[in-house]
């Protein structure tokens, strides 16, 4: 991942994050809180997919594991919600490593298929151990409310927690990408054979990538549970995993800043952007689209994804980079560090 924008870009992001609630309604702040949650998840998935080049169709399940960890600790053991976040992240990270050890013997499409099993297995496990997880009925967490002595409305509280986490994880992702671990990830992405020849165990690196991305998604899932205040096996369907992957691609695999756009996409596509797109389409072509038809959201994402891959294969991040290229000052002096991203 390149940091073409660097600290200045990050500072701009922080300013935007701080300012947004001041100009937003409570409900909009609530929605933007979820953008923060999805950003944390996408940053994690990006480490696996963008950096290390492994496709996962099941990372929604890691959000689910984080969410259930939080739910069980809060509801059954009386934990304070915030303390559960690091625990959920670590637990999920460990599960990620375990899962990675199991599946990294596979490569490419076979690995992707194996990850597809994650969300299905999670649903089954949750329903099987219903004494522990609450089964189909799920668990109701206490309604979202501000803590730590801060008296803000619940939406703002969620926003603060989600974005504090997201920005922290953003910095971590940036550090990982720049460091030795990041180079190992990229080496495995480029060529597993070459990296093995150079003494990097591709399998261990991929496993670590799973673990780290699961850690991120677990943390995101924990905040998700706090925000929604309810978990049950239907809360993390396959759709979510696919949506996360779509978000990474649309953001631009490998681009940290692009992930912000990806997170906006994940949150707003279904409720706001897709209906708006359909309305515009109807107005332009006078073709009536039945948005209430079964499967219609999936069709719309698929179309949007195809459009993006066609028009901007490197996603939002790639677009931003191309725009930045137009400004001579922003061009890096060492062009070899910039790399086209893509799966």
């Amino acid at each position, binding site marked *: 991942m390149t940091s073409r924008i660097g600290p200045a870009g990050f500072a701009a992001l922080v300013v935007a994050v701080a300012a947004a609630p001041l100009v937003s309604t409570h409900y909009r702040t609530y929605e933007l809180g979820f953008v923060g949650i999805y950003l944390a998840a996408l940053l994690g998935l990006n480490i696996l997919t963008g950096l290390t080049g492994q496709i996962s169709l099941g990372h929604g399940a890691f959000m689910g594991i984080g969410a259930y960890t939080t739910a069980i600790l809060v509801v059954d053991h009386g934990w304070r919600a915030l303390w559960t976040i690091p625990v959920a992240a670590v637990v999920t990270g460990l599960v990620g490593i375990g899962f990675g050890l199991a599946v990294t013997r596979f490569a490419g499409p076979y690995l992707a298929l194996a990850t597809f099993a994650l969300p299905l297995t999670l649903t089954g496990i949750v329903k099987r151990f219903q004494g522990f997880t609450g089964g189909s009925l799920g668990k*109701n967490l206490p*309604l979202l409310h501000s803590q730590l002595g801060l008296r803000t409305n619940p939406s703002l509280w969620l926003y603060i927690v989600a974005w504090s986490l997201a920005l922290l994880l953003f910095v971590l992702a940036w550090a990982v990408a720049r460091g030795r671990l990041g180079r190992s990830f990229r080496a495995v992405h480029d060529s597993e054979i070459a990296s093995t020849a150079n003494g990097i165990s591709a399998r261990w690196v991929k496993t670590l990538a799973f673990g780290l991305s699961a850690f991120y998604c677990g943390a995101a899932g924990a905040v998700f549970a706090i925000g929604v205040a*309810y978990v*049950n096996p239907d809360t993390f*369907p396959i*759709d979510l995993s696919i949506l996360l992957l779509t978000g990474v691609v649309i953001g631009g695999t490998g681009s940290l800043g692009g992930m912000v756009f990806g997170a906006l996409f994940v949150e707003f596509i279904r409720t706001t952007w897709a209906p708006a797109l359909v309305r515009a389409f109807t107005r332009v072509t006078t073709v009536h689209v039945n948005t209430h038809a*079964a*499967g219609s959201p999936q069709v719309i994402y698929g179309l949007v994804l195809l459009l993006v891959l066609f028009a901007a294969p490197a996603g939002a991040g790639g677009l931003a980079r191309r725009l930045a290229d137009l400004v001579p000052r922003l061009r890096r002096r060492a062009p070899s560090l910039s790399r086209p991203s893509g799966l």
Partner: protein
Amino acid sequence: MKRSALLVAAALLAAAAVVVSAGAAPSATPGVTARTILLEGTFPLSGPASGYAPIPAAMKAFFSYTNAQHGVNGRQIVFKYDDDQYNPPETVQLTHKYVEQDHAFALVGGLGTEPQQAVEAYLNQQKVPQLFVSTGATTFDHDFTANPWTIGWQPDYAAEGAIYGKYIAKNLPTAKIGVIYQNDDYGGNYLSGLKSGLGASHLGQIVSAQPFDVTSPSPLQQVAALAQSGADTFVIFLTPTATIQSYVIATKLGWKPAHVFVNSVSGTSTFLGLAAKSGSAITDGSFTVNYLLDPTNPQYNSAPGMVLYRKLMAKYDPSGNVNDQLNVYGMAKAWNVVQLLKGLGKNPTRAGLMQAARSMNFSGATANPFLLPGIVTRTQGRYQYPISQVNLVQFSGGVFKPVGGLVDGRVLPK
């Protein structure tokens, strides 16, 4: 001096204007304007539960009809609904939107046990009516003390199970019951109802009770266990897909139970027809319950509610399937909502709406025309089950024939 006096006078006048206009302003009730009342609800319009999508369309059709008849106390009903895909976090987000952004007057008909449970606490905290949820889970009717802003509508699952139990205890006292039930609150509700209907003396009639996980691919193991248990009465408390599978598997295993009872959610002509087409030989003769007018049964063709139903479907929902009883369900519910709103008069309030919902008595001449003749809609005091009477029906030749008269799943207060 004169100038400051003028300023003070202007300030006082302005203050007076504000105070007076505040009093004369339209009621501060959210969702209510001088001309409209905003009702909203979440429904699964896509995804695995999208079979229920006709319900909000039919509700909207009835509200359109009401609006064409000059609305409710001079106001038009604006009914908006969104797709939550039966996914609770979606339900939560949409519900927050309805309450905090749209400021709906009430949430009406929200569908799904888990989706509505996910938002129950929030709506009660915000004191927004969660009116007539579309699910039979007993808790929505039963727990009104904890959740005063929430109420169900249709006969609840436990009551339905009790009706099967009572019928079996009375008419099939020596039958051996094998029951397969979904291993969650849905199936659990039905099973506990069945047991309470059988009563202590007939509880032993259940020779085998097999829980089935909805995530399991097939109920083969459970149906085989029931077939081997010597049961001659097959009771199915599963969602539609698993129900169809159970019917087919029973035939494939060569099991021909003398009686079959299937829960009303899955016991529709569509699903039973599918089961028969897929090879089941035991769909004919299945018992279930019904409380709505049945568009596929010609005996109801001249009922005033059926006439109105067909007229409204043709006019306001022409692309809807008239034979789908879910449309009757939607209209029946919308009718109920309109009756409540009419009773609230010129200044409806959310609290007033809930009060009205908790003291309903639509019977006789004022009964809901879309329900079977004789079914009342009653709530009062500690009895908060709006509809609890049903007709036991038997599937025969593609049509449900009533068996006996109306049965009560619960004890109506005098």
